[in-house]
C-alpha cells in the first residue's frame, strides 16, 4: 500500500525519500511534534520548522499480526508492528511516537522498552518507509 499524503505531511515524506528522519518543531515554544500539524497545541504558534530526529527510540508496545486484513497481507504474516517512542524530546515531554515494522530481527526478540533505530527501506520508485531494527 502506498502512503497517502496530505499537504502538511509532504515535507516529512520527501525527507524520508532522501533517507532523512525529521520531526516538526514549534518555532514559538520549541515543542517537538509528529505527525505534521499546522499549529502548536501548547502555545498555538503557527510557525514551525523541521529538524533532524536522532533516529533512535524504544518499543512501547507491539503486535504480531496474523490475520490478512488486506489483500496480499498473508504473504507477510506473521509480521510485527511496533509502536516506538522516539528518544527525541523525551526530557521535554514531547513524547513522539512512530509506527513501523521490525527488520533485521526475529519476532521472538521483541521485548518491552527494547532500544531500536530507524532504517530506511526503499519499497519502490515512489515510496520509502521508516522501519525499525534492534539497536546494537
Amino acid at each position, binding site marked *: 500500500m502506498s502512503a497517502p499524503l496530505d499537504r502538511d*505531511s509532504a515535507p516529512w515524506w520527501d525527507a524520508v525519500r532522501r533517507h532523512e528522519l525529521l520531526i516538526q518543531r514549534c518555532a514559538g515554544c520549541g515543542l517537538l511534534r509528529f505527525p505534521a500539524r499546522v499549529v502548536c497545541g501548547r502555545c498555538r504558534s503557527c510557525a514551525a520548522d523541521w529538524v533532524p530526529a536522532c533516529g533512535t527510540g524504544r518499543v512501547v508496545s507491539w503486535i504480531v*499480526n496474523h490475520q490478512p486484513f488486506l489483500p496480499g497481507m498473508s504473504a507477510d504474516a*506473521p509480521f510485527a508492528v511496533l509502536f516506538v517512542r522516539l528518544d527525541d524530546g523525551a526530557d521535554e515531554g514531547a513524547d513522539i511516537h512512530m509506527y513501523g515494522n521490525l527488520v533485521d530481527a526475529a519476532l521472538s526478540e521483541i521485548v518491552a522498552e527494547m532500544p531500536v533505530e530507524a532504517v530506511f527501506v526503499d519499497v519502490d520508485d515512489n515510496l520509502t518507509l521508516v522501519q525499525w531494527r534492534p539497536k546494537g
Partner: protein
Amino acid sequence: MAAATFRDKAAIAGVGYTRFSRDSGVSTLTLAVETILAALDDAGLRVDDVDALATHRVGDSTPPWVVAPALGVPEVRWYLDQFGGGSVSHSVVGQAAMAVAAGVAETVVCYRAINARSEFRMGGTGGGKSTARAPAPTFDVQYQAPYGYVAPAQQFAMAARAHMIRYGTTHEQFGHVAVAQRDHAMRNERALKRAPITLDDYLASRWIAEPFRLLDCCLETDGGCAVVVTSADRARDLLRPPVLISGAVWGGGDSFFSGGGPGPAGGTDLTVSEAARIAPRLYAMAGVGPADVDVAEIYDCFTYSVIVQLEDYGFCEKGQGGPYVESGATRLGGPLPVNTHGGFLSEGYVHGINHIAEAVSQLRGTAGERQVPGAAVALSTAQPGYVLAGTSALILRAAQ
C-alpha cells in the same frame, strides 16, 4: 460549569431490533426502516409522531435524509447524520436528548443499520461482497497503513499489549471477558453466538493480532437497532415505563502519536482511554457514582476494551481491570454484571446502540433470564477513543 444541564429531561420510550445475521440479504435502508418501525411500535407511536431522526455512519449506512422521506415522516424538524464509528455511538442518543430538552424536536428516532459482515467490513478487512471501506478519518492513517496497520483489532491489540506490560494483565484475563459474555448470551435469544465456551476454548482460538485471538474480537454483524427518544413527561404517557437519560456526555481528542497536549494521561499513554476524561463529567451530570451503577453495557469491540473501561469509569483501581473480571465481578450475579446481552462478542455488533437497547431492557425489568434483579441505574458506553479520538457514554435510570 453546570453539570446537570439536561439530566432526566429526555427518556427512551421505545426499542427496536432487526434480526441479527451474517448476511441480511437486504439494504441498509430496509434494515433502518424495519428497526425504526419496531421501535415506534414498542413505544406505541406511529411514523406520523416522528419529527427527528439521528444516526452515525462511516459511509456504511443510509442517512436520515433518505430514511425520513422513505418512511413518509411528515416533517423533519431536526436530524443528525454524525460522521463516526463506535466512539460516537452514544453521542447520537445524547444529542437527541439535548434536542428534545431544547424543545427543538419532540420524537427522535436514533438508529444504526449496517451490513457489517456482508457488505461493509470495518477497516475494509478480509473482503466480503463489497470492498467498500471507510474514508480515512484522519491524515494520520498514512503513517500506519503502509506498515499493514489498518484494522481496529490491531489498534486495540497494541493498547492491550501496553496494558499487559504496564500492569501485568494476562491473556487469561482477556479470556474471562469473552467467557463471561458468552455465558450471558446463552440467555439471549437474539444472540448470534450461544454455544458455551471455556477459558481453554478461548486460549485455543487462533491468533488474529497478538495479543488478540479470534475470541477477543467482536462479531461482524448485519443488523439494525433503534431507540425512540422523547421528553420524560411525554414518555410517561406512552406504552412502556420510561427510561430516563440522566447522563449523556461525549468528547475527548487525545493523540496517540505525540504528547505535550492536555491528554487524560498528560501525554501519550495507550493504557488510559478517553473514558477516563469523560467519566467525571458523566457521573456529575447524572448525579451518581460508579457504586450506584447496577448494570453496565460496555463497548466491547475487543475484550481489552471492557477491561480498560472498567478502570476508567471507576469500577476498580487503575490497572486492576484484569483481576476484576477474573474475580467474576462482571458476571450475572456479581456486583457489576457487564454486557448482559453478550455484547458485541456474542450477541452481535450494531456498533453501540444494541448496548443502549440492552440497558433499556434491564431498566424496564424485561430482560428475562438475564435480568439483573432490581436494576435501577445503568451505564452504557462507546468505543473508548483508540480509533477516533474521543468517546461517549450514557447513564440511564428507571423512572420512579
